[in-house]
């Protein structure tokens, strides 16, 4: 079956069942996934305009009365697909722990302080070049219950929409040089080293604002169509 969005790139994704990440044991399908033709239902996807977000939703340091504690950072990049087409007007959402590694969520039991000036949720819409930008603080590492002495590397969660519903991506952005990488089963669920490294933002001195904030560049690449257009492909 020839699919309009090739599934080959999905080989870079983690396997649903990744035993090192224990929660996958009871939450992953046991039967093989069924491959189906890409119909209009798969090839279409939601589109958002600039009214989906409010002014300032992309600045996580200005959501409260004072400034949050921690290292102020700029996280920016381009959302594009495998065919290098920028994904414009795409909703990009992120959420993260505060500088101490604590989430504003009532099931987070990590005994680290909440920051009254930091919630940790942001969103924006990409521009015509697929470009997005957030201002936030660097999240801390935090412990979790997967195995004894388990700690997550510093990361920011991202949710992104592409040109179709099959391009929908939820991922995590990591920071360069993290010493926790070798021990994290979620990061290592991507078994190909090159693919794994594509989840690590690049330190970006050029866009670092002197005397104000370090910058990190994180391009997000979503599934694309085969470069060769198909016969009668009038959907694009």
């Amino acid at each position, binding site marked *: 079956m020839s699919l309009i969005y090739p*599934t080959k*790139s999905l080989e*870079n*994704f983690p*396997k*649903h069942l990744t035993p090192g*990440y224990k*929660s*996958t044991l*009871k*939450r*992953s*399908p*046991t*039967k093989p*996934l*069924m*491959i189906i*033709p*890409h*119909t*209009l*239902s798969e*090839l*279409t*996807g*939601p*589109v958002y305009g600039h009214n*989906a977000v409010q002014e300032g939703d992309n600045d996580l340091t200005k959501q409260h009365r004072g400034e949050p504690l921690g290292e102020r950072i700029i996280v920016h990049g381009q959302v594009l697909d*495998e*065919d*290098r087409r920028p994904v414009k007007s795409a*909703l990009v959402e992120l*959420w993260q722990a505060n500088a101490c590694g604590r989430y*504003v*969520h*009532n*099931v987070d039991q990590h005994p680290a302080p909440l920051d009254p000036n930091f*919630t*940790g*949720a942001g969103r924006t819409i990409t521009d015509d070049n697929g470009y997005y930008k957030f201002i936030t603080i660097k999240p801390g590492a935090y412990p979790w219950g997967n195995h004894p002495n388990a700690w997550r590397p510093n990361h920011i*969660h991202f*949710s992104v929409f592409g*040109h179709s519903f*099959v391009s*929908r*991506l*939820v*991922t*995590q952005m990591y920071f360069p040089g993290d010493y926790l990488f070798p021990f994290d089963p*979620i990061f290592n*669920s*991507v078994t190909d080293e090159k*693919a794994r490294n*594509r*989840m690590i933002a690049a330190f970006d001195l050029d866009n670092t604002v002197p005397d104000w904030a370090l910058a990190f560049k994180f*391009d997000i*690449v*979503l599934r*694309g169509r085969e470069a060769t257009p198909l016969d009668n492909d009038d959907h694009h």
Partner: protein
Amino acid sequence: MSEITPSQTVGPFFAYGLTPVGRCQWDPNGTYAWKNSVESNLVTPDVSGSRIRIEGSVFDGDGKPINDCMIEIWQADAQGRYASPADNRALPNSGFKGFGRSATDKTGVFAFDTIKPGAVPGPGGKPQAPHIVVAIFSRGMLRQVYTRLYFPDEAANAADPVLNLVPAERRGTLIAKKAGGEPPVYHFNVNMQGDNETVFFEV
């Protein structure tokens, strides 16, 4: 070609960012001002069609409902058109987006208010039966799983090109159960594992 960014789990803490309002009650003081970017109620004032409600749970391998799950649905309008630039029949004037998001609550229940989609074009110009594409995200899922919701008592199901690829004995996992009410409620439960494991699609 650029190379794809791999998927990672949505984790246990997405709610305050992605589904802050409504069924997810993380905030004991109710002072959280972050609004939903995507609602579980898809019904817009201008939309035509029959209103329906969809309710269900996602069960893990122990048969327990997953209470930290996010469900997204993508559907056509009642005339079978998708509100997407990739559907060149789309009517830009309709406010109906066809996209919804719901977190499961403490008891593991998700719910959507929407309208029943129409039949949409399928491969080779043959119509597909009315259906909704469902994507499920959760802690313990390193990437989303996709399934489809079909409607019972729909004669078009018999000729649906996707349902027909599914072995007959598993087809029932894709068909919601009508529970009555007004607007009618359809129950759609998803089993991640077990004898009655839902059919998931590699799309």
